């Protein structure tokens, strides 16, 4: 044995305790003895045990009582039930209650040796799995990965935890670049399916003709080029989560096929005749308005209801501006490390530009903008110059919700041009194609002033 294992023999018969303990001690293990379940629990509070050998019939709480307590408090401790001929049915009962194996007295020495080796390996794998799960959870579902302290995001985090444990289908709605896949991964990481795979499929990226074979797999000879059978992504997602990104792009025919899988929990490979059991949790995502698509007849209503048991809405970045500074600092740190650049902060003025910008491409766009700033930075602090091109975009970008009067639009436009030209009246007048006098008159009439907070007071961003 690689390191000293610790075992406990729990039996009210001294001769059994001594015989088994003596045998186990020869395996260089530390072996404790307990004559009752109560004594065993006392010892368990002091030491960690790899394997408990527990006799079923003991006075007091007995083997069953001990097994139940151990399963609750020490889930990775392996329990082997010891029983005698004639009481094997108790052992079967114990296995149902969570015992890892049982031994019928007297046991074959070879069998005992193999059993101990097998159970120690089982325990090692169990502990390794727990460790890796915790690592994966930290990577995928922790605060490091999904950044946000805004009300919308905090509500979203709560929803993720609430719905993760169930197996119901989830539809994630959100504009492009809002991190829908990250949310799907977080649901997977917080669910009981963490041990299984997370299989993302971008439905918009797979050609219609290949989609069926990709998702359902195919049998050998089912079409030209099918020289060997292939598992579909649904099979790959066995025991895990299937994430259909851009589900709005799925063809109507494929919607019917997927609906059948979701209803029957079985499917056929392309060209296959044997039904295959499907065991996956479906998470879908789209940036489209599926209600609208259903109304237009592009999306099947029954499929929509099936994938939309729970809806999560990921807010666009412009609705969670308070998260922008957190995200920016996070990206600066990441990209500085990745690109080995000595950049560690951003000026307030530059940050203000980012906070005020509308981010039609959401976090993906913000990420790219920050990456560009880090890569091109000449100082350790990123200044407002790094984002001047965003101000130009602001001028050109169509405003979505600006139900403004003509006058308000004129004020906003004059202000933008003045800001852009650093309040140089001649240049601004030239761009606006008016006289300098006219521009001065308008500035006076609308009470425009050059101010340090001018960006935040523009009406279209209020």
């Amino acid at each position, binding site marked *: 044995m690689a390191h000293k294992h610790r075992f406990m023999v729990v039996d009210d018969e001294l001769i059994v305790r001594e015989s088994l303990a*003596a045998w186990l001690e020869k395996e260089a293990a530390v072996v404790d003895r307990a004559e009752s379940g109560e004594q065993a629990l006392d010892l368990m509070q002091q030491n960690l045990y790899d394997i408990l050998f527990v006799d079923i019939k003991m006075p007091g709480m007995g083997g069953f009582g001990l097994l139940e307590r151990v399963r609750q408090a020490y889930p990775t401790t392996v329990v082997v039930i010891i029983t005698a001929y004639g009481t094997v049915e108790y052992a079967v009962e114990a296995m149902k209650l969570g015992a890892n194996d049982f031994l019928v007295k007297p046991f074959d020495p070879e069998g005992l040796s193999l059993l101990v080796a097998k159970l120690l390996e089982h325990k090692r794998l169990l502990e390794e799995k727990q460790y890796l799960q915790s690592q994966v959870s930290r990577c995928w579902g922790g605060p490091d990965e999904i950044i946000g302290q805004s009300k919308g995001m905090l509500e979203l985090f709560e929803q993720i935890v609430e719905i993760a444990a169930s197996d119901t289908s989830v539809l994630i709605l959100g504009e492009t670049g809002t991190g829908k896949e990250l949310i799907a991964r977080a649901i997977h990481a917080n669910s009981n399916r963490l041990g299984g795979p997370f299989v993302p499929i971008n439905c918009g990226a797979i050609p219609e003709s290949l989609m069926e074979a990709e998702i359902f797999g195919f049998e050998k000879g089912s079409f030209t080029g099918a020289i060997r059978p292939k598992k579909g992504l649904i099979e790959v997602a066995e025991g895990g989560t299937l994430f259909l990104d851009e589900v709005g792009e799925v063809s109507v025919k494929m919607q019917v096929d997927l609906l059948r899988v979701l209803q029957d929990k079985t499917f056929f490979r392309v060209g296959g005749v044997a039904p295959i059991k499907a065991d996956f949790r479906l998470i879908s995502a789209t940036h489209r308005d599926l209600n609208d698509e259903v109304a237009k007849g592009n999306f099947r209503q029954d499929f929509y209801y099936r994938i939309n048991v729970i809806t999560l809405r990921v807010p666009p970045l412009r609705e969670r501006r308070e998260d922008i500074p957190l995200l920016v600092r996070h990206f600066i740190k990441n990209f500085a490390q990745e690109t080995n650049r000595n950049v560690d902060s951003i000026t307030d003025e530059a940050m203000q530009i980012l906070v005020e910008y509308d981010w039609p491409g959401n976090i993906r766009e913000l990420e790219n903008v920050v990456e560009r700033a880090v890569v091109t930075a000449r100082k350790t602090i990123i200044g407002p110059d790094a984002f001047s091109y965003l101000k130009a975009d602001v001028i050109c970008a169509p405003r979505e919700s600006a139900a403004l009067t003509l006058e308000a639009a004129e004020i906003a436009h004059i202000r933008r041009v003045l800001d852009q030209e650093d309040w140089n009246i001649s240049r601004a007048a030239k761009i606006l194609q008016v006289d300098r006098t006219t521009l001065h008159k308008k500035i006076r009439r609308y009470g425009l002033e050059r101010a340090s907070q001018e960006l935040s007071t523009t009406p279209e961003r209020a």
Partner: protein
Amino acid sequence: MDKSKKRESVVSRTQAIIAVIPLGDSDSGLLQVVADSLQGVLRLPVDLKSAIPLPEESYMASRGQYNAMAIIKRLAEIYADGYLKVIGVTTYDLANPILTYVFGEAYMNGVSAVMSSFRLWAGTGNQTVSREHFLERAVKVAIHEIGHTFNIPHCHTDRCVMRSSHNLIELDHKLNYMCGYCELFLAEALTKALKEHPTDLKRQETA
């Protein structure tokens, strides 16, 4: 590792402090080979005692076998004052309350061990192995069990005699001596044991 030098200090004893005890009907050739082999491995004088009967209380009538745990307990009671370690040798089948059979038995760091030659004759099918082969098996079991009495646990070295063996194939695969590590442990254990046990170990003629 210079094991031979380490051992010289203990080899000079003339008084036997290890004893081989025949239990019940004996096979004199087997006993002699076991005693000689132990003397060779431990480099200590070994006494081959007269036979004593198997302890009555050790017989498990329902199984037709002798309880090895009960035998080593009895041997320890009888010989603890006279010898540092003793090993009983029997031709009867041994088991213990939890195992269907054992080739031998010993407590870790105990005074006594026991071994049986009952199962060591078996060859393939209904055949038996040659006497030479049989004796080699017996020597391996004897060294293995006496090793446990010196607190040496099961070894993971492929062919070390201290590797656990639960069937004859595994027993045959082992060599009849200890690996370097187990030798080292044995040398340390022997030195320690001889320091703790003064030379005036009282001889008891119990046979």
